[in-house]
């Protein structure tokens, strides 16, 4: 039986919700696909039409949440007027706010999700891509507004913020202060620092420096290598010569 797209989306949402509930109560290991399916009022087999594994559900949760937060920050009045730092800060704060109702679930799953290796990496990739898109949009806006210099290595900047995001969530998971205000303050202060780096164009300069070193050292090594190659090539005939000599000696 074919079911409508709307219905599909609804089921997907229900599965994620019941998975969050089940994993909050029993941990990732303790919750079973069957249990999740039943809680979502779906057949034991039907759930596999949506997600092949529990890990896939977890990644879907984060992906949905990221998409939702990207929309939510855009809905903030005068968000367009915010400078880059404020936009980033609002984005991170919104993410943590969205995590809050599922804090225990996030504490259970975030580490495995963010550091998933090989097998689950393909699950992580769309998540990262979405995150990169949001951050890249903000950077492009800031470059267009003349707020920061052109970013030659935007991918790298995004990667830095992705790592920053993972660090922040871990800090938040372990934050025991009232209203998690230590995290709020940490985000506020650390973005000060990050913006200082970006305004000072540190990353670009570091890359310039790296490429300078690369050119200087690798090229000089290459030159050395070439010299040796030349030397070898020069030697070759002489080896032959020696042999020749030996031959001639014989």
């Amino acid at each position, binding site marked *: 039986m074919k079911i409508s797209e709307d219905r599909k989306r609804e089921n997907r949402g229900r599965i994620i919700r019941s998975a969050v509930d089940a994993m909050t109560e029993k941990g990732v290991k303790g919750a079973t696909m069957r249990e999740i399916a039943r809680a979502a009022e779906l057949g034991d087999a039907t759930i596999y039409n949506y997600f092949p594994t529990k890990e896939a559900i977890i990644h879907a949760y984060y992906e949905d949440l990221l998409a939702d937060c990207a929309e939510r920050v855009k809905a903030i009045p005068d968000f367009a007027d*915010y400078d880059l730092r404020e936009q980033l*800060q*609002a984005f991170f704060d919104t993410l943590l706010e969205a995590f809050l109702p599922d804090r225990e679930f996030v504490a259970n799953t975030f580490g495995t999700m963010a550091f998933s290796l090989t097998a689950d990496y393909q699950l992580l990739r769309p998540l990262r891509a979405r995150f990169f898109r949001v951050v890249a949009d903000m950077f492009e806006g800031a470059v267009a507004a003349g707020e920061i210099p052109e970013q030659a290595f935007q991918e790298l900047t995004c990667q830095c913020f992705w790592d920053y995001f993972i660090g922040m969530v871990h800090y938040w998971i372990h934050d025991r*202060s009232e209203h998690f*205000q230590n995290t709020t*303050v*940490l985000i506020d*202060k650390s973005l000060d620092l990050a913006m200082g780096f970006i305004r000072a164009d540190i990353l670009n300069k570091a890359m310039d420096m790296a490429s300078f070193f690369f050119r200087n050292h690798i090229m000089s090594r290459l030159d050395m290598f070439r010299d040796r190659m030349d030397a070898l090539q020069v030697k070759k005939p002489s080896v032959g010569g020696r042999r020749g000599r030996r031959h001639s000696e014989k």
Partner: protein
Amino acid sequence: MADGIPKSKWERGACVGKTATGLGAKALAYLSRKPFLTHEKRAQARKSLDQESAALLFRSLGMLRGAALKAAQFLSLETDLLPPEITQELGKACHQAPPINRALARKIVGTALGRPPEELFASFDGVAFAAASLGQVHRAVARDGQVLAVKLQYPGIRETIESDIRLLRAAAWTLPDHRLLDPVFEEIQARLLEEVDYRREMENMAFFREGLAPDPVIIPACRPEFCADTVLAAQYLDGMPLTDWLDTGPGQQQRDRVAQTIQDIFVSGLYRLHGIHADPNPGNFLVRRDLSVGLVDFGCVKHFDPQFVELYGRLAATALHGGKNDYLSLLAGFQGDCPQASPDITQRLIEELQATGAWIARLYRQETFDFRDNPDFIPAGKRRMAAAFKMRQYMNVNPHFIFLHRTRYGLLRLFERMGARVGFRNPYEYRP
């Protein structure tokens, strides 16, 4: 990290440690030179030490901001007791809290009130219009159209107060009279903790608003539905901060009237309500077009017990025509419970009190006191305050008295700055 504030305690510690080391080195340099200097040169060297110490201390304060800076602001209220070199540096430090950007402002409101500002208010200005105690004030419009001033507190500032004060104490040891500063620091800490208690401030606002209603003073009404531990919303008052108003060059009569209103607010508060707005910062008085005065920022409020107020009310009359016995009974009242001082110490205390009394009495000798005709009045008061400060080591002065007097002195300085004529005779204090 151009505008970064050292965030962890360790970093803050390192920052102060550096300063303290710097201060210590300076003091050592002075001590090593001291035996070789003549008396005059010694005074000069001491002075230059003060200057350098002050500059160093406040350079580090500038890095800490937050609670430490607020503490500096309080210290500057005591400034007449500190060397002028330090006062100068302190003046620069006034009124700067860590900046709150638009994203953080939104976050603070959301955390404290449960919903983001755009859902709570018809409009909310993310950019602050004024600095406040350890936070800043934003303008907002409520859904019912009322314009509001919303005070936001920087998150986690309460937790840094204690450690900041401890660090500041460590850094202040080379300052002259640093032992005498101990109770000052304790008081500063207590007041800072009060200042970040927005719920208490809300109660105080309502208390004064109700109690001072008939006077020509406007105290904003709170909107409790927008108030929490770190957010305080009240009706927005239009009007110019006193210093800005003075810059517009108001006439003598206008200045007199505003000064008189401020003095009347103080008297009514003290004798009718037994409480005072104890932060005579010129920014807290808003002069409105009809010359009525708006009073804002109730973070620093003191309540007294009625017996104390009654006793204080006798000070002026005693000063004008009291004998030694009147002073003795006043002294007994203002002294906290402490062991009986020796007769010659008591004698000195009485002399001090008499001298202070004589100074205060000048205010009541004429119908109105003209600050322009008495340019020596505030400098004399400065000397009295310094002497009284030194006496603290001999007696356990009722802290209420110190508090009240400091506020009073702050107001007098304000009147002097305004060049105003003020009538100090009032039925509570003056009995002809």
